[in-house]
């Protein structure tokens, strides 16, 4: 495929996704509201992701501490490990890693689920049943992803900091009180708020991409596989792009 065709495909895809996003905003405020389905999706998206987010957060904090320790000892600033780690985890590592795991777990499941619903005519059946499938399936899932990811990131912040505390105590000894004090002394709301705000956008991107890929899945089992796969790839890429934009904005607003 030549570059011109690839560019054309990219533009068609980008246009389709922009229209899909526009449709989301027109549908989200219109009654009837699918509250029960939204809560069910929040439970699926949020609660079912907890074990994975918890385990990865703990390992991330622990490993980062152990990797950082030799260099810190070399510079004689071992006592600053909690301070440095808390800034790194809260501002960047935890939101981005959580969003990437979320894209892998939730983005792919949305792509596969809606894709198989499309292939097996379940989406058509909903339309025939007088239920707006876009509102029932897409709006609820995108909202659930947007609302749940920030909560998961906050939990991941806490769990990864606990992992860091365990890491610090493997070779040295730091009391819980001292560790918490060092973290709180160094992390301010100007670190936490931009980090949380950008995770709403991460969640929205994962939800929109997962639903878009599934909703317009091509027929056949291969189509479902492609939807799930491309949902993860595009959502992960978007997480980094949004992160890049977010850091520029926080810089402009003086949060850095």
């Amino acid at each position, binding site marked *: 495929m030549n570059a011109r065709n690839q560019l054309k495909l990219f533009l068609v895809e980008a246009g389709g996704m922009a229209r899909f996003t526009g449709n989301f905003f027109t549908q989200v405020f219109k009654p009837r509201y699918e509250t029960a389905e939204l809560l069910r999706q929040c439970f699926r998206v949020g609660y079912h992701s907890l074990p994975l987010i918890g385990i990865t957060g703990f390992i991330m904090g622990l490993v980062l501490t152990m990797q950082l320790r030799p260099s810190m000892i070399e510079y004689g600033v071992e006592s600053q490990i909690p301070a440095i780690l808390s800034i790194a985890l809260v501002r960047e590592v935890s939101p981005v890693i959580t969003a990437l795991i979320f894209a892998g777990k939730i983005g792919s499941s949305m792509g596969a689920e809606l894709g198989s*619903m499309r292939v*097996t*005519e379940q989406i058509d059946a909903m*339309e*025939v049943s*007088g*239920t707006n499938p876009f509102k029932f399936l897409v709006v609820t899932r995108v909202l659930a992803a947007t609302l749940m990811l920030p909560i998961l990131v906050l939990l991941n912040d806490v769990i990864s900091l606990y992992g860091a505390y365990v890491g610090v105590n493997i070779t040295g000894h730091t009391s819980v009180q001292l560790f918490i004090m060092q973290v709180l002394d160094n992390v301010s709301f100007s670190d936490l708020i931009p980090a949380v705000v950008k995770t709403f956008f991460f969640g929205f991107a994962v939800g929109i991409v997962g639903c878009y890929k599934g909703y317009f899945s091509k027929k056949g089992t291969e189509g479902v596989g492609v939807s799930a796969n491309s949902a993860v790839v595009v959502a992960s890429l978007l997480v980094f792009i949004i992160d890049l934009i977010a850091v520029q904005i926080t810089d402009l607003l003086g949060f850095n």
Partner: protein
Amino acid sequence: MEPVLQHKEVVLDVSNLCKSFGNNHVLRNFSLRVLKGENVVVVGKSGSGKSVLIKCIIGLMMADSGTVILLGKDVSLISVNELDKIRARVGFLFQSNALYDSMTVRENLLFPLRRHWLKRESTDEESLVREALANVGLEHTLDMMPAELSGGMRKRIALARTLILKPQLILYDEPTTGLDPITSREIIALMNTISKKYNAASVIISHDMNCIKMAADRVVMLIDGRCYAEGNYESLKKHDDAKVAAFFEGE
């Protein structure tokens, strides 16, 4: 057409329907009229546009030209809300059954009742679900998931879902595809029973000879996007046109 049906109410009137996908002209001025209580089977080769026709009828696809008058309303001219109200009186049995995998049988059957104007009207949803399941003889599956059911049972549950609102017209998209001959015959017998019970008209898309023989009051042959021939099973079987005869070869 049987004379007795002539004075009955028209539930579906399709006229001069055209639908193309690029250069592929699937439907070319196709016309069809279905009367109340009548079972019409539309037959044709795979890819001849039968499923496109049925999707144009229910408004899942918009035709390029022509009109579809469904229960007295032109589906291309009415609002989405009005179309939904018409759809509440029309059942649609999908080829793949289209049961919602993440819901139990009960939730699947309750799904068409979610429409708010129906909620106000219907007094007891549970009794509607039980009646629909009793019609297909699967009352015991109420709390089962679709994945736990056999192919024939899934078809029956899908049929129960189309019946829950007691439709005046039922559209069947290949109702016996993928089923063994015995189950196929059971499903066709069930379709006939249901049509009689609710005095519902049916449009059945099929190329199953058993289905044509057992269910059809009238058979319409869709060839080259047009209504090529129509009549009852016996008259079409004796038809001397080569394309029609080819379809009934071996019967």
